[in-house]
């Protein structure tokens, strides 16, 4: 395989191929071009999946699955005990609002599952090396009935995940991928191409040809973020939009604002802003306000502060999402596996986008600014306080 792909949608085309991202091999010397982060087949597939009707209950999107394909027989993982399971979770990090929101949901779902007696979370603090050791410890400790892994990086966690698969404990992977199909199931939303395209298409449809677009990204090198940009880039090129800059914000609001101000100074004005993640979307819009300019067409994510501002200030915006409820799905899948119920080899979750039309249903005035609208947690015990709401 060439270059990285997103969450592995492409490789499952044959049904039984690796459900995970391939390695990023060779140096990525050209950030802007991103050719190595683009895989046409995956791209087409993800774009198509956006309109596919998912299987499962419509009011519980976290239980839905898109084109499930091969189902895995999990009877050999069926737990000996009927309850009091110890479910272990190796988390890459807890370092951004999206993950924090998801982490709370996951814990709540685990608490809400009577069979789970103990939910053990070990945080790798964004350190690959630490996560490898964490997983090793889980395997060698022999106390886990199931191991859930949210990998820090794709290629690097692969050996550890493979090691974990060799044990007789079921391994469940979600969010970012690994380069092996050994886990029982791999859970993820449609993917980065779809995310990037949702946002880019909105700008394509609204900004006049030749309009000036600024692309803001968090950081390089994370596959699920890379595909968002490579998914968008082609659309801009095709539409003849003028991407005046691609900048990394480190997810820092102040830096984001400074970057946008610099561009406003340099370019005079901007016609659209594309973002690969929405944590700093509000800061981006404020840069326009502070410069005394009207906010152009912008994209964000389902973070509550952005949605609120969108609604209150009447922004011209769109918010693709990276379904935060997948954190809940990970527990649900684990429960199924330990009960011996079958699960899809690759569990693809729906990935709704928030538009002007459906905005109202996602804005949550009683929830904190960094709450994620696609939480999928409203029916869990402890809502809304556990998520910081009133």
């Amino acid at each position: 395989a060439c270059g990285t792909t997103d969450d592995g949608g492409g490789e499952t085309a044959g049904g039984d191929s690796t459900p995970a991202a391939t390695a990023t091999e060779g140096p990525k010397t050209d950030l802007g071009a991103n050719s190595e982060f683009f895989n046409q087949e995956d791209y087409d597939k993800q774009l198509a999946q956006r309109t596919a009707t998912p299987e499962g209950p419509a009011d519980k999107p976290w239980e839905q699955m898109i084109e499930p394909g091969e189902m895995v027989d999990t009877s050999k993982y069926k737990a000996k005990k009927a309850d009091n399971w110890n479910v272990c979770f190796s988390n890459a990090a807890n370092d951004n609002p999206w993950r924090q929101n998801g982490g709370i949901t996951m814990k709540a779902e685990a608490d809400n599952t009577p069979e789970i007696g103990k939910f053990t979370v070990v945080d790798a603090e964004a350190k690959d090396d630490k996560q490898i050791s964490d997983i090793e410890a889980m395997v060698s400790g022999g106390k886990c009935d199931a191991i859930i892994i949210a990998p820090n990086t794709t290629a690097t966690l692969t050996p550890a995940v493979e090691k974990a698969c060799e044990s007789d404990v079921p391994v469940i992977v979600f969010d970012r991928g690994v380069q092996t199909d050994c886990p029982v199931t791999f859970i993820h939303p449609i993917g980065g191409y779809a995310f990037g395209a949702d946002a880019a298409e909105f700008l394509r449809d609204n900004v006049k040809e030749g309009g000036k677009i600024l692309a803001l990204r968090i950081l390089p090198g994370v596959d699920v973020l890379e595909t968002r940009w490579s998914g968008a880039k082609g659309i801009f090129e095709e539409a003849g939009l003028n991407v005046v800059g691609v900048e990394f914000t480190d997810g820092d609001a102040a830096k984001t604002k400074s970057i946008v101000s610099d561009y406003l100074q340099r370019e005079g004005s901007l016609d659209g802003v594309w973002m690969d993640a929405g944590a700093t979307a509000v800061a981006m819009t404020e840069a326009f306000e502070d410069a005394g300019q009207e906010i152009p067409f912008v994209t964000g994510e389902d973070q509550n502060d952005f949605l609120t501002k969108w609604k209150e200030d009447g922004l011209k915006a769109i918010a693709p999402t990276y379904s935060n409820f997948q954190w809940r799905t990970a527990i649900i899948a684990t429960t199924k596996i330990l009960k011996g119920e079958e699960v899809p080899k690759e569990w693809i979750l729906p990935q709704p986008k928030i538009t002007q039309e459906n905005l109202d249903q996602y804005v949550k005035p009683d929830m904190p600014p960094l709450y994620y609208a696609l939480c999928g947690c409203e029916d869990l015990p402890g809502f809304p306080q556990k998520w910081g709401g009133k």
Partner: protein
Amino acid sequence: MSTENVSASGFGADAGDRGKRILSALLSTGTIFILLLILWVWITILNPTFAEPGPFLAYLKRSAPLVILAAGAYFVLVSGNFDLSVGSLVTVMVVVAARLIEGEPSRTWPVILLLLVIGAVVGFANGFISTILRVPSFITTLGMLLILNGAVFWWTGGAPRGALSENFRSIGRQGIEGIPWIEQLPWSVILMFVIGAASVLLMRADFGRQLIATGDNERAARLSGVRVDRVRILAFVLSGVLAAVAGILLGGFGGVSAQVGKGLEFDAITACVLGGVVLGGGRGSVVAAMAGALTLEALFTWLNLQGISGALEDTVQGVIIIGAVGFAAYRLRGAR
């Protein structure tokens, strides 16, 4: 006295060298001002609007937090210590403010007061541990960095919660409107100048002279009656309070974010060193340290305008910082 030969004693044996002396002083500590001027001119050449009041004030506004942090870092550095905790302290300010204000404008001022108190208390703790308990400040404040980062998110459950109020945010975002020619005079720029002036006065006052003497030679200062522990603790308190001010400005400028303070401690120290402050204490001027911060921000602007590829930006920044500090050291040596 055994001698009337006073002509050779006292000062002024080479009064004619006064001009030369001023020149050499400027050469040694003035490098930063020259560098700053060069950058400003260069930026203006690249983007003529930079010199207009609006954009220039925008630049000052953006620089204000770092300038204020640099002043705080200066007090600590000149007394012979380090403060690596200011970055996380800035984050703490923003996160605590959001959690406590919850968008409620009436809570703004009490919370701001509280933030300043937190800054002072953290500074005091840093100072107390580093002086009375004799833990090297590098370690004290490194530990404090970890403690602050952990504690604040522990308290908020991982992510920032709540929201800042509009009037809180206006301090870092807005200013006095309707001033002719410049339109808006940002509050942060006013604060920056006020703090700058106050810092200069403080350094000229007895406290400042005792502080710098302590950094230069602790034993001599103590034997001269200086309460060295006390002045050092005060320096940390100042650093903490100024970090709180910077946090308030940054929270106002950018809104709630868990990233806001990341790496600021290094930027502040770099700014000071660019300005000629000697790590280890006893030397450097606070104006030059603040000029160092303005230079660093100008450097970021310059890099942006040069269109240096985002990736190589860090490399260029690193080379320039090393080059500038090396150049200053070279001039200092030449001038000695």
